[in-house]
């Protein structure tokens, strides 16, 4: 239904709407003509909520994506200068071909080949989520980039230093000025540009999406349909809606990794009742985002399903959904596992992972 190509086509339409809107603003406030100037030089991009999605969880009006802001955010996302030694860009750990995950790494490695303690999740549909990172270290799409930038084992930089580094680059100075109405290379604008880029990163064109929206190319096999039914019955309480997450923190019974003892949500809240709770991840594009779980312990969907069927460990914070009538986990036959696995693969969105708009060519 909605693609970035369409976004571009829609821009002229959007411009008209925007113009009407800005006239309205002009009338109501009477004294401002820079709205017009912005509309002429830097268009707002069209952002449509896919019809099968829940509403936005972030108020994107605060930092609404514009053409120039988006392009600048994309350039920053692919620029190693955002790290202390100039080698690690966001895209280093978030590769488009794998739905913006770090392919083949259980723990993402960053600067000086240091290894982190968590697996890089997919970056997609961020504006529809209320919490970010496995422990909810951030709840703002605009502010979240602070975490990887300052993390000593990821990029080990500071926003202030990045701003200083980019201020000497004439091209960046020009691009910031275009994107932010004459304003300069600042910490705030770096965050805003990255936020605009990530706002536009919507994945909503998998075969499953076409199926639910009754669009051409949206047929599912009998096995996939069986998997969909099982998924709705057994998994969708947590992997909710067509985002496949409820943005909540839950303990799904993974035995804690003894090498890390990652406390999950407790790290942020300080409450022991949050121990071993992690953000429910979206399962979109899950076929290409292996390895799985916060520590990347499982290499295949089959292993994930084996875990849900027989490996769930009891602890005081285990989610009650996975501890019903004395049964731990979700009993599944091999046939059912195969069906769920087949269904999960219908969530792969090749439009998204091949979309040239999310790829920055130098």
């Amino acid at each position, binding site marked *: 239904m909605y693609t970035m190509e369409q976004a571009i086509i829609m821009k002229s339409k959007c411009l008209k709407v925007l113009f009407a809107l800005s006239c309205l603003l002009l009338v109501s*406030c009477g004294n*401002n003509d820079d709205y017009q100037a912005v509309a002429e030089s830097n268009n707002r991009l069209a952002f449509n909520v896919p019809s099968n999605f829940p509403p936005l969880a972030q*108020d994107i009006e*605060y*930092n609404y994506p514009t053409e120039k802001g988006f392009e600048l955010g994309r350039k920053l996302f692919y620029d190693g200068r955002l790290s202390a030694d100039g080698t690690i860009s966001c895209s280093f750990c978030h590769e488009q071909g794998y739905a913006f995950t770090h392919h083949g790494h259980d723990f993402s490695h960053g600067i000086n080949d240091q290894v982190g303690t968590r697996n890089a999740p997919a970056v997609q549909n961020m504006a529809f989520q209320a*919490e970010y990172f496995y422990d*909810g*270290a*951030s*709840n*703002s799409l*605009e*502010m*979240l980039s*602070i*975490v990887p*930038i*300052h*993390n000593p084992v990821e990029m080990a930089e*500071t*926003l*202030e230093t990045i*701003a200083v580094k980019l201020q000497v680059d004439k091209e960046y100075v020009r691009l910031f000025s275009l994107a*932010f*109405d004459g*304003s300069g290379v*600042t*910490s*705030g*604008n770096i*965050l*805003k540009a990255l*936020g605009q880029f990530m706002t536009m990163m919507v994945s909503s064109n998998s075969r499953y999406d076409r199926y639910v929206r009754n669009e051409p190319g949206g047929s599912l096999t009998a096995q996939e349909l069986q998997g969909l039914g099982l998924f709705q019955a057994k998994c969708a309480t947590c992997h909710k809606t067509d985002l496949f997450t409820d943005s909540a923190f839950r303990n799904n019974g993974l035995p804690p990794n003894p090498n890390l003892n990652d406390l999950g*949500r407790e790290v*942020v*809240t*300080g*409450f022991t009742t*949050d121990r071993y709770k992690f953000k429910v991840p979206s399962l979109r594009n899950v076929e290409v985002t292996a390895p799985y779980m916060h520590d990347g312990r499982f290499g295949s969907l089959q292993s994930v399903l084996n875990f849900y069927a027989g490996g769930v460990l009891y602890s005081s914070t285990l989610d009650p959904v996975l501890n019903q009538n004395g049964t731990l986990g979700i009993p599944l036959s091999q046939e059912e596992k195969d069906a769920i696995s087949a269904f999960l693969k219908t969530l792969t969105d090749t439009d998204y992972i091949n979309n040239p708009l999310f790829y920055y060519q130098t």
Partner: protein
Amino acid sequence: MKFKLQHIVAAMAVATTLVSCNNDDDTTAVSGTGDAEIFFDNSVNGDDLLLNTSAYTNSNGESLKINRLNYIVSNFVLIAEDGTEVVYPKENSYFIINEGANSTTVHLEGMPAGNYTKVRFGLGVDQQRYLQGETAQQSFWDLAAASELTWTWSTGYKFINFEGTFTSPQTDGEKTFQVHQGSNTATDNYREITLTLPNTARVRTDETPSIHLIADANVILDGATKIRLFDALNTANTGAAIMGGQGLIDIANNTLSMFKVDHVHNGAGDHHEE
């Protein structure tokens, strides 16, 4: 922003009318705008706060030598006698008090002339502002970073950065302490504080009142709730850190009584040396 401006203009109009029917020592109506300043005089339980100097002993029997006291104050509102509130424009209403850098005064500019009897402000950054993200006008992140008031492992601001060393009757030797107060995605620890002024603060085009507040750093740990640093010691027994959980909620509650108004100076010019 435009909306806010209209607010201010409206408030100005109200304040102006108010003042005209007010029978303070002024007989003539006041108009125009002026400035107000609020001086945060950092202290510890009645003593002056001296960084890196002597230790202060609290009611838990712990002695704290303080190396750092920085905090964010925000969302200033001056309240006139009849309750009319003049809200300082939100996008300019975040300030850093940094004892070490001797930055302890908040200047509010362009306030409507009038007689004010109360001041309200926030300690920290409210959720609304936080979720609006950075504005291009005010690079607050950089300012906060310069005073060690940003949190980078999560994406927020430290509302208070209170650090130093301490000794405790429960353990031997000097340990470090770090109290980092702030909100996280689970608890909103921003609090607003309203203080009544002992005498009216007169804002005039040519008069800048100075509201002299005493900020008592002792109350952070030794307030309504007694928080022992000993209980926050790390497993290596080298230092105590309070940066999350119930501790922050208790501190937020304690800080509700951290500020008192000592006096208000009226007249022209600056009243406090910085």
